[in-house]
């Protein structure tokens, strides 16, 4: 995933046309949110739109039985609640902070009004939501057919990309909730990953030591999804052909 450069620390805000940013600037605020903070609950009206800069939001589908399944991860590559620009009022999933960190937030109405004035901004939002939809399809297939070791590796890589950090502050319990696995399963899988030199972990923190090796443990879904966002990013910045992630893909003979 390309690292955002520039003042916002979030790729969507970076990509917003300048006139729109001018309109949004006074309504945008930067906050630090802690783990477990519910940004928007399932079925609730979208009152704020969140653009993560260093934190990570999980989109979770709660089930009646009390267990929940994660439907997506949102970090510095995106935003939660952007569908408000189409007039869509409710969030289907629960948006909950998984890794504490920084977020920009903006009330829904000012954002909607500003985006409405710009074809370019609308196109940006459409393409982003299109990318997320493709990702959701890939994740659906992944959760249905890939084994837990691959899903864990995939999740860790995505979380590292989307928080911009190889050090992830989260517990194995939380990881278990997100992946629909028992905490013991996570521990055993984490031990396997540790044995392969890919990660190190201590209470409440997981560090990625070898990204390439960890990618070797993950399913193809990781690179497929990363490619989706690379393409989205490339569409936004056609003049910037080469970036860290893209260089690696250019070298990849497949």
């Amino acid at each position, binding site marked *: 995933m390309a690292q955002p450069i520039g003042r916002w620390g979030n790729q969507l805000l970076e990509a917003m046309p300048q006139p729109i940013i001018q309109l949004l600037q006074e309504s945008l605020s930067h906050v630090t949110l802690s783990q477990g903070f519910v940004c928007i609950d399932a079925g609730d009206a979208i009152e704020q739109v969140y653009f993560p800069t260093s934190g990570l939001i999980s989109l979770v589908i709660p089930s009646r039985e009390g267990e929940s399944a994660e439907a997506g991860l949102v970090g510095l590559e995106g935003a939660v609640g952007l569908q408000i620009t189409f007039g869509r009022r409710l969030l289907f999933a629960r948006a909950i902070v998984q890794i504490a960190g920084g977020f920009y937030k903006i009330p829904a109405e000012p954002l909607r009004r500003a985006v409405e004035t710009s074809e370019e901004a609308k196109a940006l939002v459409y393409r982003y939501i299109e990318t997320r939809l493709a990702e959701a399809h890939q994740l659906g297939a992944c959760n249905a057919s890939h084994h837990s070791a691959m899903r864990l590796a995939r999740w860790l890589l995505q979380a590292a990309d989307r928080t911009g950090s190889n050090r992830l502050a989260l517990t194995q319990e939380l990881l278990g909730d997100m992946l629909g696995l028992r905490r013991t399963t996570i521990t055993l899988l984490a031990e396997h990953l*540790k044995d392969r030199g890919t990660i190190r972990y201590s209470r409440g923190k997981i560090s990625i030591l070898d990204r390439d090796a960890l990618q070797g443990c993950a399913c193809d879904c990781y690179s497929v999804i990363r490619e989706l966002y690379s393409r989205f990013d490339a569409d936004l910045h056609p003049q910037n052909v080469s970036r860290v992630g893209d260089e690696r893909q250019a070298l990849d003979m497949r």
Partner: protein
Amino acid sequence: MPRYTFKLRDDDYGVEDSNGVNLPDAEIAYRYACDVVRELMNAREPSTRSWQLEVYEDGQDKVFEIPFVALDQTLDHLSAQMRDMAERSARQIRSFKDTYQVTRATIREAKSLVARSRGKPYLAADRGRKIIRNDP
């Protein structure tokens, strides 16, 4: 509430959950362990078929030993006889792997002991596990 810990015997040296979980009783621990087995096995049954999960109570007694093959639903379509053969075969492979791992560990330990006794460099640990076991 008793604390249940877990050891996974796999294709390598095995891993464990030494922190474990507090669970009300052995029956619930068994069901929990079966869930863990299914979560580890799901979507890769053939490659985990010879694995085994051991459950320990309060750090001492081994209360269960669950072979992955016993919970493998992808074998459900087999006749009872074929299923039985698959389970026995998996057990044999497990037994072979256990023996192989013990032998390999013993050989490595012997090599290190010899090198050490000769004042030569030797491999002291692999992935956090000491090569020379039970060293005073």
